[in-house]
C-alpha cells in the first residue's frame, strides 16, 4: 500500500488519473496473493503455472469482459452462463453434423450474440429491468438446452478446432493470446471510442444520457449483444478445450464472472469500472483456486477461503480508493 501511496504522493509530476490509481490498488491485491503463494509453495512461481493460471483465467475473462460493459451501463446479465451452455451445444451439433469447425464456431458466436440481442431488446425496448430480463432468459435457455440435450453430451471434435482451446503458439497457450486480444480490444473500445464513452455516460445517468442525444436504446442493445457474443466466444473456447458439450457447461461460471467484474472495481450502479480491472478480478479469483489446489487445501474449506479472500481483495481496494 505504501508503495502506491508514495507514487501518487511523492512524485506529483507523474499524473496518475483516478482510474489508474485505483487499478494500482487492485493490482496490488493480486500481487499480494502472488507473493503469498510464492512463499507458500515452490510450485506457484513457475513459468508453467503462470501460463496455467492465465489460461484458466481466460475462460472467466471472456465471460466477464462482455459482462463488464453491461455492468458499466448499470445493468446485469445473469444469462451468460446459460448462454454458454446453449451456444456450445448448438455449435457442437453443427460441428458434428457438418464436420466444419468454422460453421460450428460461427453458430456458437451467432447463438451467443442472438441471445444477447434478445436481452438487449427486453431491457431497452420493453423496459424490463435487466436483472429480471436476463434471469428469465437464464431459465428459458436452460429449458431449451435441457430439452435439446435430454441429458446427453456431444463430444469429440477435430484436432484443428481443438487448437483454439488447448493449442500453443510460441509456448504460450492460444486462449492466452485470445484473452490478451480481447483485453486490448475491450479496453480500447471502452476507453478510446465514442461508443465506449457513451456507455459510461449511460451508466452514470441514463436520463441525462438520453437527453444529451445518446441513442441509449441502441447502445444498450449493443452491450447486451456484446456480452452474449463474448459468451459465444467462451463457449467455443470451452468446446475446444473440453472436447465436449453438455447442457450445464457454463452454469457454474455466472457468479464468478460477475464477481470478477466487481472485484475489478466496477459498480453495479453503473458508470464505473474497466475491462482491465475485470482482467485483474478474473486473475484474483483464478489465483485463489490455483493456490488452494497447489496447497491441497481441504475441500470443505475451499468455499470459505474463497469467500474471505474475495472480501479481503475488495476491502484492500476500498482502502486504496479512500487514500487516493
Amino acid at each position, binding site marked *: 500500500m505504501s508503495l502506491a501511496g508514495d507514487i501518487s504522493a511523492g512524485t506529483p509530476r507523474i499524473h496518475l488519473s483516478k482510474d489508474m490509481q485505483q487499478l494500482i490498488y487492485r493490482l496490488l491485491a493480486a500481487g499480494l496473493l502472488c507473493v503469498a503463494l510464492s512463499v507458500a509453495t515452490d510450485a506457484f512461481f513457475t513459468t508453467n503455472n503462470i501460463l496455467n493460471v492465465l489460461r484458466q483465467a481466460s475462460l472467466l475473462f471472456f465471460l466477464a469482459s462482455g459482462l463488464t460493459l453491461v455492468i458499466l451501463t448499470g445493468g446485469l446479465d445473469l444469462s451468460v452462463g446459460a448462454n454458454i451452455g446453449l451456444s456450445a451445444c448448438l455449435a457442437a451439433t453443427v460441428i458434428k453434423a457438418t464436420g466444419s469447425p468454422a460453421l460450428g464456431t460461427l453458430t456458437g458466436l451467432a447463438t451467443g450474440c442472438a441471445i444477447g440481442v434478445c436481452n438487449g431488446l427486453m431491457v431497452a425496448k420493453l423496459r424490463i429491468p435487466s436483472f429480471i430480463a436476463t434471469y428469465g432468459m437464464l431459465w428459458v435457455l436452460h429449458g431449451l438446452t435441457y430439452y435439446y440435450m435430454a441429458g446427453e453430451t456431444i463430444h469429440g471434435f477435430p484436432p484443428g478446432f481443438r487448437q483454439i482451446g488447448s493449442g500453443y503458439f510460441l509456448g504460450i497457450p492460444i486462449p492466452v493470446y485470445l484473452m490478451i486480444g480481447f483485453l486490448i480490444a475491450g479496453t480500447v473500445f471502452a476507453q478510446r471510442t*465514442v461508443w465506449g464513452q457513451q456507455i459510461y455516460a449511460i451508466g452514470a445517468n441514463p436520463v441525462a444520457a438520453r437527453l444529451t442525444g445518446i441513442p441509449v436504446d441502441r447502445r444498450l442493445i449493443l452491450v447486451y449483444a456484446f456480452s452474449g457474443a463474448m459468451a459465444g466466444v467462451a463457449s467455443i473456447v470451452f468446446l475446444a478445450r473440453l472436447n465436449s458439450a453438455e447442457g450445464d457447461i457454463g452454469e457454474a461460471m455466472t457468479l464468478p464472472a460477475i464477481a470478477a467484474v466487481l472485484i475489478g472495481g466496477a459498480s453495479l450502479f453503473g458508470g464505473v469500472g474497466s475491462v482491465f480491472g475485470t482482467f485483474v478480478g478474473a486473475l484474483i479469483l483464478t489465483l485463489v483456486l490455483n493456490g488452494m489446489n497447489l496447497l491441497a487445501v481441504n475441500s470443505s474449506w475451499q468455499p470459505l477461503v474463497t469467500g474471505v479472500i474475495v472480501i479481503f481483495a475488495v476491502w484492500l481496494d476500498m482502502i486504496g480508493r479512500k487514500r487516493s
Partner: protein
Amino acid sequence: MATTPRLELAAPPAVPGTPILELKGISKTFPGVKALDDVSFAVWPGEVHMLLGENGAGKSSLMKVLCGAYQADAGEYFHNGEKVEIRSPADARRFGIAVIFQEFSLVPYLDVAQNIFLGREFPSRIPGLLDRRRLYREAQKVLDLIGLEVDPRTKVHQLGVAQQQMVEIGKALSQDARILVMDEPTAALSDRETERLFEVMRQLQAKGVALVYISHRMAEVFALGDRITVLRDGKLVGRALPGETSPDELVRMMVGRNVDMSYPRRFATEPGEVVLETKGLSSSNGIRDIDLKVRAGEIVGLCGLVGSGRTEVARAIFGADAVTAGEVRIFGKQRTGGPDAAAFAGVGLIPESRKAEGLALIRTVSDNLAVAGLPKLFPNMMFSPGKARRSAQELIQRLRIVTPSPNQSVAVLSGGNQQKVVIGKWLAAGTRLFIFDEPTRGIDVGAKSEIFALIDQLVAEGAAVLMISSEQAEIVHVCDRAYVMRGKRIVGELSRADLSEENIVRMGMHDE
C-alpha cells in the same frame, strides 16, 4: 484584488444585542479547494440575513458547516453568546437550526408527509408504531401554511421540481426552528409560490426567527434583507445594510469587477431562416396544439406559470416525449425519432433539472462537457482523452467554470457551475437550436450576464434559441419575442414591442 472596492469590515452595522448564532474563524478545505477561509458570520433573531456570493463562493458550504452537515477544519460556534459544538445535523437541530438545502434532501419513494417529518416521526400509543393519522394531519397543516396543494400521501418522486422545492421548504418550516437557513429556495419557484414563501418568512420574522437567506436574485436581496454578508472565493469580503448599498456595489463585491446587469443585446432586425417550427403539436405529456416558430438569430421566450406546460413543449420538440399529433420541423425537415435524432439535427436541450437530467454526477467535468459533442469532436469515432480535455479546458475558460481541474468530479462543483457545464456540453456539439429550460436557475449575477452574453453570441452567429424562464424580467430583457402558455396551450404571442412583465402575466393568468 486591491482594485476591488471593499466595504468596511471593521464597522458592522448596529446590532440588536447578542446574535442567536455566531460562527468565528471557520475554515474548510476540500481536495483542491479551500471552500471557506477564516469566515465569521452571525445572525440575530428576527432578521433576514442575506448571504451573497458568486457560484462556488462557499455559501452552501458555510451553511452546511453551520448545520453540522460538514465538519469545519477550524472555527468556533456561539449560541446566544455561549460557546457550543455542532458536530452533526442532530446537534444543529437541538439548537433550533433548520435548513432548506440547495440540493434536495428528499426521499423519492416516501410520501410528502413522511418526507416532511423524516427523523421526527410521531410515535403512536402502541410502542414501536407510528401515529399515521397525526402524521398526515400535521403534514396537511404544513402544506396549508406554504400553500402547496398536493395530497400529503403523494410520493415525492411524482412531484415536479417546484413542488419538491415547496416540500423541502415545508420540511424546514415544520421544525419550528429558531434559525432557518434557506439556500436558494426560490430558484425553482414561480412568482406565485415565491410570494407565498415571502409571506411565511415575514410571519416567522415577526415571531423572532432568525433567517439566513441565500439568493442570486438581486431583487429579493433588497425586498427581504435586513443585513447582507458577501463571500468571495471562500473569504468574507463584506457586510452591508440594504439601505446603505446598491445592487452594483454588491455585485462588485461579489465578483470583484463591474458587471452590466442590463444584458444589452442587438435585437434581431431581420430574422433568418426558420429553424424550428411546430404545427398542431401535441404530446404524450399533455400539451395540445402548439404552433410556434423560431428563426435563426432569434431568442424566443416561452413563458407562463408553473404547470402551464413549457417544459413539455421543450421535451416534445426534443423528442424526449412522444408526439401524439402534429409535427416538429427542424430546418424545414420533419423531426422523427428520439432525442438522439434531434441532437443529430442540431437541437440541444438544457433541461430544467440539472442533477437528474443534465449531468452524470459521478463523472468528471471534462467527461460531461464532451458527452454531447462526441460524434462531432471525434468524427472517426475514436475517442481521445487529451483532445476531450483540451476541448473541456476551452469551455471551462469560455464559460468561466470554477473547478480545480477538468478531471474534477462534477458532483462537487457549486450549483451554478454545474449549470454552466450543462450548457457547455452543447457548445461542443455544433448545436444550431438551443432550448433552454430555466437556464439561469441558481446562477450568480456575474455568470448570468455571462450566460446571456453567450446566448447573444450564439444567436449572433446564427443559432436559434427557445428560452423558458420563470423570471419574466429575463424574458423581457433578452427575448426578441415570446409565446405565453396557459393550461398546456399557447395562448398568445408577444412581439418585442409588447414584451413586458404585465403583458406576460395578463395573458398567462387570464381567466384565473
